[in-house]
């Protein structure tokens, strides 16, 4: 059973084994914010990115399941400012590693890191060294990007096409959806059809300034890309080039996280909240929504979730479905952790006393 979990939190990395049969145990970094986590499916190595309040963004790797960690150089811009920020501000410095992704099975050692400010970094040696992906950083339209939730724009979603590892789809808050078909050498702006109600009327549909909170790709049908956007839920069936908005989503189409069934591109899960800045469950009722028909309809899943008024919010990386598409893991900013069996129809609270949760991940076999 793939029900051992990694849980990245505001106060360290934890493991929750046996579907919560055992108490959460620290896997390291107790007290430190873990901003991103990756278990590399190719070699099992664990990666933890830290956001140390005083001392910056850091990266660590474990080759023994978290028993011991070694620090790696974190992705960084080359000094002294060889790639000056297009906004005319100070030369850039990585302030947050927001997401980590493994390359394809045919790319041993390849890792991707998405950061604040909105930069993509590539490693070909398991994180020992990192290179800025210049072709994305030097996009002229980057000067139009802006922060979403943070002061600076940031890359939070990196989707590697399982059919062809050179094909990437990334999501930037707020810089839209970008696609590469050549390993990041060249980029095209996707996201046509996304709509930003926070912009003047003439720029609502400008793909450059969209805020896709999170992108998730169906493993078996990677042309289907689900997007939990700041202004609603969208679906693409052409690899992120164009999206259609999903309407009439109750109780809300606002949220941060999305998970997609690995075999069925029409099935996806969301965690709704009150838009835009309020960000609490609608009417205090914390639920998950699921569509199984591509967004034509949604079910509200609540069995096992709090019956009392709740204020839990689930961030971008804190909702995940397992490889079978049967069990979900979900963690909230209130420090509650749930396991959702039967496709999310039956939730069980594993812990309600963790620090604020930034990411959940099933342990790979």
């Amino acid at each position: 059973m793939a029900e051992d979990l990694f849980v990245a939190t505001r106060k360290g990395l934890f493991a929750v084994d046996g579907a919560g049969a055992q108490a959460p145990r620290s896997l390291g970094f107790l007290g430190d914010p873990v901003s991103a986590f990756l278990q590399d499916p190719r070699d099992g190595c664990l990666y933890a990115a830290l956001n140390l309040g005083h001392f910056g963004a850091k990266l660590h790797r474990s080759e023994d399941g978290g028993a011991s960690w070694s620090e790696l150089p974190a992705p960084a811009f080359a000094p002294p400012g060889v790639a000056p920020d297009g906004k005319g501000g100070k030369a850039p410095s990585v302030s947050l590693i927001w997401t980590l992704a493994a390359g394809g099975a045919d790319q041993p050692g390849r890792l991707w890191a998405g950061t604040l400010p909105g930069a993509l970094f590539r490693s070909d040696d398991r994180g020992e060294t990192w290179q800025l992906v210049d072709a994305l950083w030097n996009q002229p339209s980057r000067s139009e990007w802006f922060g979403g939730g943070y002061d600076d724009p940031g890359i939070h979603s990196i989707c590697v096409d399982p059919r062809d590892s050179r094909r990437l789809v990334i999501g930037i808050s707020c810089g839209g959806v970008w696609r590469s078909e050549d390993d990041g050498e060249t980029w095209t702006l996707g996201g046509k059809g996304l709509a930003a109600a926070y912009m003047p009327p003439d720029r609502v549909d400008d793909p450059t300034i969209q805020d896709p909170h999170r992108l998730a790709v169906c493993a078996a049908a990677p042309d289907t890309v689900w997007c939990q956007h700041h202004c609603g839920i969208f679906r693409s069936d052409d690899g992120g080039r164009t999206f259609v908005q999903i309407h009439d989503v109750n109780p809300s189409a606002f949220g941060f996280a999305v998970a997609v069934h690995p075999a069925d591109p029409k099935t996806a899960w969301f965690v709704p909240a009150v838009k835009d800045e309020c960000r609490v469950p609608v009417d205090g009722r914390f639920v998950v929504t699921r569509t199984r028909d591509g967004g034509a309809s949604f079910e509200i899943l609540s069995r096992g979730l709090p019956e009392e008024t709740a204020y839990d919010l689930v961030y971008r990386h804190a909702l995940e479905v397992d490889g079978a598409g049967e069990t979900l893991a979900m963690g909230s900013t209130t420090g509650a952790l749930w396991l959702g069996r039967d496709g999310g129809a039956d939730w069980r609270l594993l812990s309600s006393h963790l620090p604020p949760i930034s990411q959940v991940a099933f342990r790979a076999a």
Partner: protein
Amino acid sequence: MPRVTFTANLQRHLDAPSLEVGGARVGEVLAGVFAQKPLLRSYIVDDQGRLRRHVNVFVNATMIADRDGLSDAVRPDDEVFVFQALSGG
């Protein structure tokens, strides 16, 4: 030579002993430390070599003025203190 002492809070993350290193400016002194402790660099300065926002450096009892260029003067008998700022949480 100037003596550089780091906040004990750094010890949670990595080894940061007090060191005596040469240099007439804060930046030169820190560069001497980083030459001996390469991983320490990114804890104190950002990608561009500027003092991190929530790190403070004092020469003796005086907080340095040039956080970007680290050009504040250091004399051979000075002590350089590297602290975390309370603004960092």
